[in-house]
């Protein structure tokens, strides 16, 4: 994130960090939605979600490399890579739900949680076997231009990430709030047993929730690798934890909360990274960026465990 050049006036740095933060936050928000949707509907924190994002990024990368080598034009490569990654992640999400979580539907809450961590490790290891331990550089498929606003640079990649994330989230809100499926999802999240009386097959709704969340994860994975220009088998871990933090910050289970929490966390992180050097008199540098997310998590858990937009967090019976 922003290499601070001491001569640049303060407004530029601030604005620059806001742009960086919004970009990062858009990605956090997309990933956080995956956590919060699954939590909302079945009270499970799917810690494997970060790895789904990673698989999405690496699948897109592998597809893109293959297509580029075959001479397919770059814009088409991007779309196809995104499509393949999304489909792979959706199938992966469905498979995780079916194999790892459904058998534990009536088990004590700790069992699926530990299973989630297990799934996460398995996915990471499989990805390591498939793609190796190396960092992969991501080919530039998006326009490389940038604009200057009040001295701060905003790249076209950043703009595209924000626009795509915003429209995807808008679409998701429409789906959840306006469609028959969305209604069934909300009803199931309140009570699977009562929803079943209306003819809702909770298993189907839960699976679709995983599929949608994983699709958003794939998109986020492509974005994050496009933003940083690299992808590797371990990238899902920290990203997943941060997105989980964003979901908790917004109020886990609350879709709007995940979006707000994601954007907020991105901005906090970017501003923190940008100013930590000044604040600590140079003792700590921007490599402490990751600290902020977890500092936020701790503060939220202490002072407002239900998050900014969440209702009271109650253990489900």
């Amino acid at each position: 994130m922003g290499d601070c050049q001491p001569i640049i006036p303060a407004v530029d740095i601030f604005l620059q960090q806001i742009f960086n933060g919004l970009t990062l936050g858009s990605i956090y928000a997309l990933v956080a939605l995956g956590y919060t949707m699954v939590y909302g509907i079945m009270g499970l924190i799917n810690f494997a979600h970060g790895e789904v994002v990673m698989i999405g990024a690496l699948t897109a990368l592998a597809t893109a490399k293959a297509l580029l080598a075959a001479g397919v034009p770059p814009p088409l490569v991007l779309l196809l890579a995104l499509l393949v990654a999304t489909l792979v992640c959706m199938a992966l999400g469905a498979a995780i739900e079916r194999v790892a979580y459904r058998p534990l539907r009536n088990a004590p809450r700790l069992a699926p949680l530990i299973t989630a961590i297990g799934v996460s490790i398995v996915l990471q290891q499989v990805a390591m076997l498939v793609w190796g331990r190396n960092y992969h550089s991501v080919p530039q498929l998006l326009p490389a231009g940038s604009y200057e606003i009040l001295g701060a640079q905003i790249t076209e990649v950043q703009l595209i990430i924000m626009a795509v994330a915003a429209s995807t989230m808008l679409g998701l809100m429409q789906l959840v709030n306006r469609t028959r499926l969305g209604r069934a999802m909300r009803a199931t999240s309140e009570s699977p047993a009562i929803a079943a009386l209306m003819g809702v097959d909770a298993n189907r709704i839960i699976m679709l929730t995983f599929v949608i969340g994983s699709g958003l994860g794939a998109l986020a994975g492509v974005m994050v690798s496009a933003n940083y220009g690299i992808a590797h088998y371990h990238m899902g871990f920290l990203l997943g934890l941060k997105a989980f933090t964003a979901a908790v910050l917004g109020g886990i289970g609350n879709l709007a909360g995940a979006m707000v929490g994601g954007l907020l966390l991105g901005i906090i992180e970017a501003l923190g990274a940008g100013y930590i050097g000044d604040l600590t008199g140079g003792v700590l540098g921007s490599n402490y960026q990751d600290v902020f997310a977890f500092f936020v998590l701790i503060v939220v858990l202490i002072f407002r465990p239900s998050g900014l937009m969440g209702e009271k967090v109650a253990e489900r019976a």
Partner: protein
Amino acid sequence: MARALLDVLNLEVRYGGIMAVKGISFAVEEGEMVCLIGANGAGKTSTLKALARMLPSRGEIRYGAERIDALPAHALIGRGLALVPEGRGVFARLSVAENLAMGAYHRRDHDEVAADIEYVHALLPRLKERARQLAGTLSGGEQQMLAIGRALMGRPRLLLLDEPSMGLAPLMVEKVFEVIRTVAAQGVTILLVEQNARLALEVCSRGYVMESGRVILADSAANLAADPRVRHAYLGE
């Protein structure tokens, strides 16, 4: 006598380690309004939950021409069997209109659904007034009305009602039972579980009395209301 719409044979329900229903048999004919009365903990709610497949059970449950005891809960409403659960079970964070829409979730006949919303609104005008309000903000009586309206949106052939009077003020209880009577008069078969035995025996034609997981009496409502045991134990006389 025609074949019963609902025919239950040796139904057993275990609930939390205890046998809540100990092999009961009963039947409900098409178009009848039958009640299941008894004290708290007699097994009435467990029976209804088993019929709606919310609880596993043993024994036979015949509905229409088929056995439904191996079906999942979500397969029943499409067959015309609806339950208004104990405690109403409205979706608190969905609007009244959305709750009604959930009642018609399994239906694809959109024009007919729209007509049924009109019908439910005519039957329960409060639901129309409060269509956009979240169901959780309704009063207990309104929530009960919503739960019934939502069940009607599924066009049930057999309606199971679990303690519709519970927790309601007397005036509201009267209103709710008036609605139930109207629904019954339109040909919907009703199986009613009630602790308020007096009320239940007033509106139903037949009744079963449950005690400790067994059916101890089965008779016409008039005979049950006159039975000294029922009068003593459940009508407070």
